[in-house]
């Protein structure tokens, strides 16, 4: 590994003893000997298996739930529905005051996506739980679903989630997160060229090799130990405390190595119902997603639609950017209001644009609720804005790397969301990239600096 010490030479201290040296990973010994402990690498006598009965419909009213046959099935210990959950309505981000609560641990009155959890069956063996789950009878009145952002935002669209009362998240700024900087219409009027493109992405599933799950053990001192592969231990502990109306100190969350998270294990999904089941049965409870549940039920990265309009000058300066972005949250908020907010700030990219207008919507549809994944809110925005940069460069006949030098932010530039740029290093990264990728640019770009705007 080579340290390029000519960049920011006066600011750096290259007296490193660890950086630049290979270090063994502390967890590799366990991995290669098969001794790393994942949550499911434990057995407990008397453990029960939880199988979830899920909605077969995208959107439906629940008319009745009949668990009587299922309850009689040999090996069944307990069956849980919404009424068993002390505080059934929740949302993950209520902990940081991003509400309203809009999701149920077990469905009440309505199901809003195909696969939503309705009834939890607890039995002595997995097979008995599967057999009993097949005997649960739920009567539905099927409702019209909206399965795309466009359909969800039509004026007469069926409402997905009554806790919002509209098919988009209502921010304190209104129907979307808004960035207003300068005057985009003036910018467009002055521009030599206008480019408007629409970018779209589908939901993306993390597909970790280890599926989501937890095992909960009731302890002798009245606490519950929850062995889980969640990536969000404190979110899970605090939300479980609220859902179960149980003081947090009675919950003991034990993590360990996660067999692939990628953001797919940050929802508070399996623990509350498993802890409740352990409490009501007095026995250890295992709730582990099958592969099908992991692929279809667990949250994916949100599908997005981004409309990006730019005004650019012949000399390469982007003078105006207007973005309308939609994040498909699916049926419930989870992390999506935050993702759509991050996106709003992100759309100018690492570039200084004097006139910016961003509207970023978090939209509800009757699809699998989406959630975090690898830079959610920002990743797809980057795809859109960087492809747009290439298209803009081509439009004015400029090299795409040189085009980025012209627009790159420098220290002190005001960003559209009104944070001054500090510690910018894009120019230097592109200079080094130009060298190592053998993509030469004009020497005036190799002389540029992030610390001062030339001319």
């Amino acid at each position, binding site marked *: 590994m080579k340290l390029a010490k000519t960049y920011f030479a006066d600011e750096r201290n290259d007296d490193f003893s660890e950086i630049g040296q290979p270090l063994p990973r502390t967890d*590799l010994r366990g991995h290669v000997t*098969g001794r790393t402990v994942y949550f499911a690498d434990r057995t407990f006598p008397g453990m029960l298996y939880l199988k979830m009965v899920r909605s077969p419909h995208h959107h439906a009213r629940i008319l009745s739930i009949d668990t009587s046959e299922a309850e009689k099935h040999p090996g069944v210990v307990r069956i849980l529905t919404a009424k068993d959950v002390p505080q059934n309505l929740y949302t993950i981000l209520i902990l940081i005051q991003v509400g309203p609560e809009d999701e149920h641990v077990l469905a009440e009155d309505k199901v809003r996506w195909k696969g939503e959890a309705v009834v939890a069956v607890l039995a002595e063996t997995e097979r008995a739980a599967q057999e009993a789950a097949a005997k649960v009878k739920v009567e539905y009145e099927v409702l019209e679903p909206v399965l795309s952002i466009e359909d969800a935002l039509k004026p007469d669209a069926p409402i997905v989630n009554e806790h919002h009362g509209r098919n988009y998240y209502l921010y304190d700024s209104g129907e979307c997160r808004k960035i207003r900087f300068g005057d985009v219409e003036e910018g467009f009027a002055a521009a030599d060229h206008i480019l408007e493109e629409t970018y779209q992405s589908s939901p993306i599933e993390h597909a970790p090799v280890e599926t989501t799950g937890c095992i909960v053990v009731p302890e002798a001192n009245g606490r519950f130990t929850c062995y889980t592969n969640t990536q969000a231990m404190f979110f899970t502990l605090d939300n479980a405390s609220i859902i179960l109306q149980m003081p947090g100190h009675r919950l003991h969350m034990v993590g360990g190595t996660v067999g692939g998270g990628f953001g797919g294990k940050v929802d508070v999904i399996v623990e509350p119902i498993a802890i409740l089941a352990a409490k009501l049965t007095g026995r250890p409870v295992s709730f582990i997603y099958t592969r099908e549940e992991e692929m279809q039920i667990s949250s994916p990265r949100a599908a997005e639609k981004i409309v990006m309009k730019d005004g650019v000058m012949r000399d390469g300066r982007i003078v105006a950017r207007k973005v309308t972005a939609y994040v498909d949250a699916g049926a419930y908020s989870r992390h999506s209001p935050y993702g759509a907010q991050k996106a709003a700030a992100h759309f100018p990219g690492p570039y200084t644009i004097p006139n910016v207008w961003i509207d970023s919507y978090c939209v509800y549809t009757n699809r699998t609720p989406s959630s975090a994944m690898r830079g959610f809110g920002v990743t797809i925005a980057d795809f859109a804005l960087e492809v747009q940069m290439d298209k803009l460069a081509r439009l004015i006949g400029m090299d795409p790397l040189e085009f980025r030098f012209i627009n790159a932010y420098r220290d002190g530039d005001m960003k559209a969301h009104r944070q001054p740029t500090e510690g910018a290093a894009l120019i230097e990264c592109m200079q080094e990239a130009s060298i190592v990728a053998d993509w030469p640019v004009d020497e005036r770009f190799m002389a540029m600096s992030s610390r001062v705007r030339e001319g």
Partner: protein
Amino acid sequence: MAKIAVQFTLNGSERAEFVESGSTLLSVLRDKMGDTSPKAGCRQGSCGACSVIVDGELTLACLTLAETSNGKDVRTAAGLSSGDVLHPLQRAFEEEFAAQCGFCTPGMIMAATVLLERNPNPSREDVIEAISGNICRCTGYEPIIRAVLAAARSNSVAA
């Protein structure tokens, strides 16, 4: 529910348990015999995380009914090292950073073990074919391929 006897050699030791009829080899190894090195990733034969070696053949424990292993020789990743001494494959995986979350690692190592037992000098294509039944979502496979090739080289140097 009827219990049945299951008896086989596990990593060189005779093991016997009474288990639920119809149990898979995977659940017997993990829940009854205390060997959690094979993992349940899909239970449909797609991911390879449950790979073990039965009578010298790479086998998916999730699709094997435990009783069909009676009398056989079963090896798992946990049985590869002896005490503190790592198998060359294990050492190579460490040196090449061939694991991140580690969940696919036991299965990968089993697949590589069978490969090197049959083909001590595999090509890159041989390695790819050998691990083609094992999914990794973290490393992008290159460090794993490098590790298997490095283990093969170190074996031939030692020999």
